[in-house]
């Protein structure tokens, strides 16, 4: 009798990854049901790849019922742009590009020099694209395990008419009852993969054999060591004086502005090896690879308040 009960229970249990998947799908469907004009940010990074994969599953066999938006800093890894275009073509998606370069060329954004990191300026392009497109919900691939300020972020993150986030004035979220009511001009940022950790993302992408940009897997690359960050030598990264170029096996843990995203040494050329490395790593992905988050302890909090993702 007891064995039978156990067997029955075992059959109706979800694994942790299936639970995360179900919760994310619920959030994505809720947004599409309640908002008029959602859009999903897509950088080609693994988190946005995961988010898009979940969105496709949430509406299958129907197509994804909203466009995707790439905030293009102009400092891209060519592999990522190729990947983006391939995904768009393969799944018949609508792609909108919010181009920083266009804003810079138009004199709307002032940059110190051509090759400084443009991560900070993404906010301007993003807010402008949200306004122009009239989007009332914007999906982002932020995860709460990434960084302290993100740990307090809601799944539905309310933004005022200026796109600003007020950490003290966030709507409480209970059960799975999300309140997306808003006035015209306001919008909601939605983070459907809030509860996934870096390791969860890798385990799930591996399970589903989801295609990723090749730079996420170990490959040989010319890099220089800048204060512990392994920076790729390319058109966006001027060699610091006296820097020593090394050819190493590396991979990327995050994909951001090419001037500010560093690689890590790795031999992991396929999913299983990446998972092993991720399970064993002792440094956060942002600490290891993002020059821009290191500047101040409260760097992320400040950027979020301005409307950054």
């Amino acid at each position, binding site marked *: 009798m007891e064995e039978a009960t156990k067997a029955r229970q075992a059959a109706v249990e979800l*694994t942790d990854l299936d*639970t995360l998947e179900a919760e994310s799908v*619920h959030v994505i469907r809720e947004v599409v*049901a309640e908002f008029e004009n959602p859009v999903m940010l897509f950088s080609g990074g693994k988190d946005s790849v995961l988010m898009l994969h979940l969105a496709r599953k949430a509406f299958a066999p129907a197509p994804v019922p909203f466009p995707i938006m790439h905030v293009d800093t102009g400092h891209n890894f060519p592999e990522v742009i190729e990947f983006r275009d391939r995904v768009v073509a393969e799944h018949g998606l609508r792609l909108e590009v919010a181009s920083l370069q266009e804003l810079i060329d138009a004199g709307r954004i002032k940059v110190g020099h051509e090759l400084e990191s443009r991560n900070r300026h993404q906010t301007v392009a993003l807010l402008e694209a949200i306004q122009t497109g009239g989007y009332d919900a914007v999906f982002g691939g932020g995860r709460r395990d990434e960084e302290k300020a993100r740990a307090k972020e809601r799944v539905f993150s309310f933004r005022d008419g200026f796109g600003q986030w007020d*950490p003290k004035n*966030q709507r409480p979220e209970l059960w799975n009852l999300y*309140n997306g009511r808003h006035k015209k001009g306001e919008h909601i940022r939605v983070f459907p993969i809030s509860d996934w950790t870096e390791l*969860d993302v890798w385990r799930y992408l591996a399970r589903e054999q989801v295609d990723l940009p090749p730079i996420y897997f170990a490959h040989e690359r010319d890099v220089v060591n800048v204060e512990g960050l392994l920076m790729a030598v390319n058109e966006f990264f001027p060699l610091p004086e006296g820097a020593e170029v090394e050819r190493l096996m590396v991979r990327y843990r995050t994909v951001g502005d090419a001037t500010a995203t560093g690689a890590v040494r790795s031999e992991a050329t396929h999913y299983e090896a990446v998972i092993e490395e991720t399970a064993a790593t002792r440094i956060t992905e942002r*600490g290891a690879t993002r020059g821009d988050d290191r500047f101040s302890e409260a760097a992320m909090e400040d950027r979020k308040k301005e409307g950054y993702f």
Partner: protein
Amino acid sequence: MASSELLRIATAGSVDDGKSTLIGRLLHDTKAIFEDQLESIELTSQKRGNEQTDLALLTDGLRAEREQGITIDVAHRYFATPKRKFVIADTPGHIQYTRNMVTGASNANLALLLVDARKGVLEQTRRHALLSSLLRVPHLVLCVNKMDLVDYSEAVFDEIREEFTAFAAKLDITDLGFVPISALEGDNVVERSQNMPWFDGQPLLGQLEDVHIASDRNLVDNRFPVQYVIRPQSSEYRDYRGFAGTVAGGIFKQGDEVMVLPSRRQSRIAQIDTPNGSVAQAFPPMAATLLLEDEIDISRGDMICRPTNQPTANRRFEAMVCWFDETSSLRTDAPYMLKQTTRWVPVEVEALRYLLDVDTLHRDLEAETLDVNDIGRISVHASSPLFFDEYRLNRNTGSFILVDPTTNLTVAAGMIIAAGGDPATGEIVAQDITFHPSKLSQEERWSALGTGGATIWLTGLSGSGKSTIATAVEHSLVSGGRSAFMLDGDNLRHGINSNLGFSPEDRAENVRRTGEIAKILAEAGNVAIVSLVSPYRGDRDRVRAIHEGAGIPFYEVHVDTPLEVCEERDPKGLYAKARAGEITDLTGIGSPYEEPPAPELVPDADLETAVRQVIGLLG
């Protein structure tokens, strides 16, 4: 890595009882903390002159918190062992943040409470236990922390355990565990403590890994709130109509007979799709898509269940709520929007039964409102029936949030106790009202009639000319071939409202009844023209809400004739009587008139113009 379960933990504790340190310890000892994070907090600890690395710094996220040295909101932390993935909703302990604890507990499988071994069970400990029980967190573990500061004394631990057990007996806590720990030293957190050989239970992490959560779900009562309808409209899937949602209760199997609420139409499950393909059965918390054998009109907010096991369908219910909003208090004279499962419904709070003192469990029956962090019992009246279960039977179908329609803020969270409380006494009336929707949809009816219904609501002082305008509008519409019907306040008081006087309560009921009748007339395809003083804003707003809830146009027309003019006209001699003191509660003299802040129309003083303006509203 083997697949594992996900366990959600809500933590709570008083300031300084070491909660942040405990979480830091769990993260650290399960290797969920990275070197760069550790370096950063080591540096900060040194700067502050701390001897040891302050693990609490790991979880104190925002700048304001670091400055105040306290946690101010719900923060989520993640760690995993080979057995389970854990999500911690870390909530602050101090009194003003009850709402955060409630938020964290709403999804938790387990509540982790901390007490300081030196201080024992405090008011806050009791409050957190009560909230966990109110939110029906199935498991509770009490950590007696700082055992190192009481020489790892078994007697101290036993005393706290007994005191807390006695208190917990008054609450509804099904599974209660205890563990003596030192978060600072790591005793009994991950590893069994060498300092407390007398404790024969598992260390905390072991308890978290082994607690049985699979049977905490309701797997008996099948509930599937429809979230979204998937219709690919591609040649390949021309006939695909899938009802997507998250299973809220029970186990749905292919071939099962199902009933759809509110239409009460029946069919069978033809296919169950999930993100991972078709499956034979779906259970909570799966995201699934149900395909039925018959073509039934189903939309978001409908509930799929079994014909033999339906949720309660009722407009009225009793609930416990926690008030969240700092800027407003609970009002019984204003409409709210309620979200339950996938439905938004306009509601009003009919009564506050009592305010619960979370420290003494005392029920204050005299309380007039609920403010932020208050918990109380209310009676709710929804503009259309909700399909729900008692919260204690199903957390998914028994929970709701209240939203202020003006600010869009989530002002309260609620848990349904029972259906259909008597509006006056709160006693649960045995009733099994089933909502019988008309077989015709409003759209079908109106399109067959070639015209749609609407309500024109004329409000204003006695003698302002409401009835004159209403009569003229009715005449004009009817002679133009449109079905219109006037509801005059005075006339209704001779019939359906003959048992009502002029107290604010009776006036409210007068407006409510008239509003319901207008709505029915409009639903049937007529233009209902109401002429009623209806002096209170809240009463009128409620009528508007029931119309909006039913998708019927509602036009508030403020006949704004100055009091002097009304008094001069005095067609019924009421003003003269009021001035003579014969009647005391005439609107404008002894009783207030609350002007509509945003009426659809304030008509011109000229009758002909006014009639044209009112008819113009109908488009």
